[in-house]
């Protein structure tokens, strides 16, 4: 049983290591992958299968829990232990798994509908508690599996089958929401950026505590091109790197600066000077900065958005704390004897 909480980077510390190195094939199941041609989920799966062997852990100590949605089919395709559960409940189920077993790497795979619509409460509670799980949130800004209704991340005014006159819902910003829910690790990445995805997911699973990774994912069938605005050199993709000035745009010509009223805004680096460009601090205890950075995300059509690790701070993980209170006699007979003492209690009489 654990007694001291582990630090960031210790996410996998108690997971046993593979004896011989594993390969991508080891993490490929025998199930035929069944997403639509061109679906962004393929790219994420491939990247995932590529990075898992690099973690060095035993594959049988990997568990993937998903909800319901296109992306939630993910566990079937990875040769690990997995559960394709019910809509929205994966974070709760994963909480039970993580509390029960410190020797497992626990991933949650979910969609914008699964995680933020029906499952919103379980997600924010898992983040608040800081359960040692890593959540991959496939955000395609649409309900894919049910064939194209707007989701809690769809832009207002979106035309879908359930909003023929334009949706009147304004969206969540998943990063802001997670920060508001006390998340200790929050990041964002993009399905097609293999290197970035690998880096962010590796950091996330290595974090001890709850990690939320929002993955912008293209759904070519029901919401094609939702993130195309972020492609190309002069897109508004704002990469965040701890300890580095936040620069973006062609040749990094733009930077994020703090304005006179204290709010963040983009500016030409030439004009403001590099020394005035905000240096990213993902480890800052106070989530205020990370929150402000999250607000640089567009809420309508996405043309500009930060990616990378917004926040990564140390906080005891829930399951470690819970385990620290639990103990049991290792020997079954002794366990039974102790239990016998408990049920007998102090106040008995004998006939």
């Amino acid at each position, binding site marked *: 049983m654990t007694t001291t909480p582990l630090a960031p980077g210790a996410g996998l510390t108690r997971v046993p290591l593979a004896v011989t190195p594993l390969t991508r094939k080891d993490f490929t199941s025998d199930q035929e992958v069944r997403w639509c041609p061109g679906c962004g989920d393929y790219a994420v799966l491939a990247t995932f299968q590529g990075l898992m062997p690099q973690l060095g852990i035993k594959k049988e100590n990997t568990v993937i829990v998903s909800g319901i949605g296109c992306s939630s089919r993910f566990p079937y395709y990875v040769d690990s232990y997995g559960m394709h559960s019910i809509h929205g409940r994966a974070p*709760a189920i994963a909480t039970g798994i993580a509390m029960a077993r410190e020797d497992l790497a626990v991933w949650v795979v979910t969609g914008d509908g699964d995680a933020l619509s029906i499952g919103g409460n379980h997600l924010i509670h898992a983040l608040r508690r800081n359960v040692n799980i890593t959540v991959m949130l496939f955000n395609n800004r649409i309900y894919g599996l049910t064939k194209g209704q707007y989701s809690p991340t769809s832009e207002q005014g979106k035309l879908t089958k359930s909003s023929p006159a334009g949706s009147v819902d304004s969206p969540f910003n998943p990063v802001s929401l997670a920060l508001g829910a006390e998340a200790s690790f929050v990041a964002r990445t993009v399905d097609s950026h293999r290197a970035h995805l690998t880096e962010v997911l590796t950091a996330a699973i290595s974090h001890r505590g709850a990690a939320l990774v929002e993955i912008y994912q293209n759904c070519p069938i029901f919401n094609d091109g939702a993130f195309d605005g972020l492609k190309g050199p002069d897109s508004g993709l704002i990469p965040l790197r701890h300890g580095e000035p936040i620069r973006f745009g062609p040749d990094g010509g733009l930077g994020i600066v703090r304005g006179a009223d204290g709010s963040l805004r983009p500016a030409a680096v030439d004009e403001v000077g590099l020394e005035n460009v905000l240096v990213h601090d993902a480890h800052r205890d106070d989530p205020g900065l990370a929150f402000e950075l999250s607000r640089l995300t567009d809420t309508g059509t996405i043309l500009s958005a930060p990616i990378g690790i917004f926040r990564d701070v140390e906080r005891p993980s829930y399951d470690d704390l819970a385990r620290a209170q639990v103990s049991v006699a290792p020997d079954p007979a002794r366990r039974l004897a102790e239990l016998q003492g408990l049920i007998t209690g102090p106040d008995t009489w004998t006939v």
Partner: protein
Amino acid sequence: MTDITTLDHVVIRFAGDSGDGMQLTGSRFTHETAVAGNDFSTLPNFPAEIRAPAGTVAGVSSFQLHFANFDIRTPGDAPDVLVAMNPAALRANIGDLVRGGTIIADSADFTARNLAKVGYASDPLTDGSLDSYHVHAFDLTGQTIAAVAELGLGRKDAVRTRNFYALGLLNWMYDRPVEGTLEFLAHKFAGNPAVRDANTAAVKAGYAFGETTELFATRYRIAPAPVPPGTYRQISGNRALGYGLMAGAARSGLPLFLGAYPITPASDVLHILSNTKQHGVTTFQAEDEIAAVGAALGASFAGQLGVTVTSGPGMALKSETIGLAVMLELPLVVVDVQRAGPSTGMPTKTEQADLTQALFGRHGEAPVPVIAAASPADCFDAAFEAARIAVTYRTPVILLSDGYLANGAEPWQIPDLATLPSIDPGFATSPNGPDGSFLPYARDEKLARAWAVPGTPGLQHRVGGLEKADGTGAISYDPANHERMVRLRAAKVAGIASDVPPAEADDPTGAARVLVVGWGSTYGPIAAAARRVRLNSREVATLHLRHLNPLPSNLGEVLRRYDRVVVPEMNLGQLAMVLRATYLVDAQSYSRVRGLPISVAEFAADLETIIDEESQR
């Protein structure tokens, strides 16, 4: 000198304001009763409000104790003795007291203001309206204050000891020693000598008051009940239930994981298990009932015994996840401590109207074994049995208790845990399919599927809520496979019938024509009523069901042996419906839905009418 009268049994109800300490007084008196060797059964009754305004009927808290020289089954319908600390307590409880019963009242509290608060125009202690009872009214408050005067407490604190004064008096009346209580006080208030001494003085003064005053003409003595030799303790249903789950986990060699969200009257199971972490128990107070059962299911997936505890509204919320557990075929114990519904209903009142929800409250064909506890102490055995079925058959199991069992208490002969059967989770550790493959839905002779936990090398597999292909567990939309799996899941649960004891009617003479079938907490009232009926020289058979799904395999046969089958339930006839449908037997519902246990007296009388009717046919 006072006489000593010997009695078979007595029902005492202590009633006062929520702050008056009636629960403590009651449970102390119960303990003396237990030590004296009587059988007993108790039932507390809390106000619905946390703390309603003092002196109001809504704020009355009471504790009822039934004790006897024979084995009793219920806390009693109607008290023989009512201890009323104030007018509200009298008003709220007088209707239940037996005619000719005894009232012990603190006259100090019967002020004009307090009387008016509960709508008494004149003082019932003196206006003659209680003439058909034995009323012992005296200045309990004043006497207590006097008794503790020299200990230097403030008036408020002094008054707070009056429940112990009353306890001392009762101890005298029923001829019990006070030593146990004095020890208890010494222990409990070790850190607060002033309070300890005051309470001690109050107990002694109360006892002395009985001895010296001429107010009470009689003392009573209830001989010990003949019970099997052994070591006993007093236990409430919720505690027994928690311990039964722990025993089930221990005998399975599994850690216990409780996911729960607080809800009356189930919360105490969470509280009790939260206090047993050094026995390998993890408790998770979830954000809601769905997360509670989800986390429990996750823990089961990870190789623990996942359990969740709730009441009706929480059951409704858990139903989707229970359906998932049916598909995953993993162990899971779901406890429903029933309360009066529908909706929020009457949370502090008991009922057994969640049976059909337990049996049928899921979409699709989702069979789940359902079992019920019969008495507070029986909650232990029922919980152990639920764990056994869940682990052995890899299935969710619903265990039904109710508010009456949860808070009621009775003597419990402490079992030797080592003699309980051991339970085999049958973990898969090696491939069971062709070419070294693992078939998670391959089944053993009980139709339980292979259970491999994460961390087991080579047995990686995925489970989920989509229909599973027989054997491999892969997703399947094949019509024939679906039909096969639906029937396999049903057959697995139905097969449990061969693994449980056959139904046996209690029919002492074998000559009864009327059979009373019960389940859950009607056990006590039915047994007590049957006793009365038999004492009145009539024949009646009883049969109490632990297993509601599947029903014992011989049940139809037993039912058909009788001319008439009567099913008393605290609902509108839910078990009766199931028996009728299953066996085409004209089982008749005897239905009382009052948020209270079925009255023994009322049921016994009605049962006699039924028996007499039947004998005239």
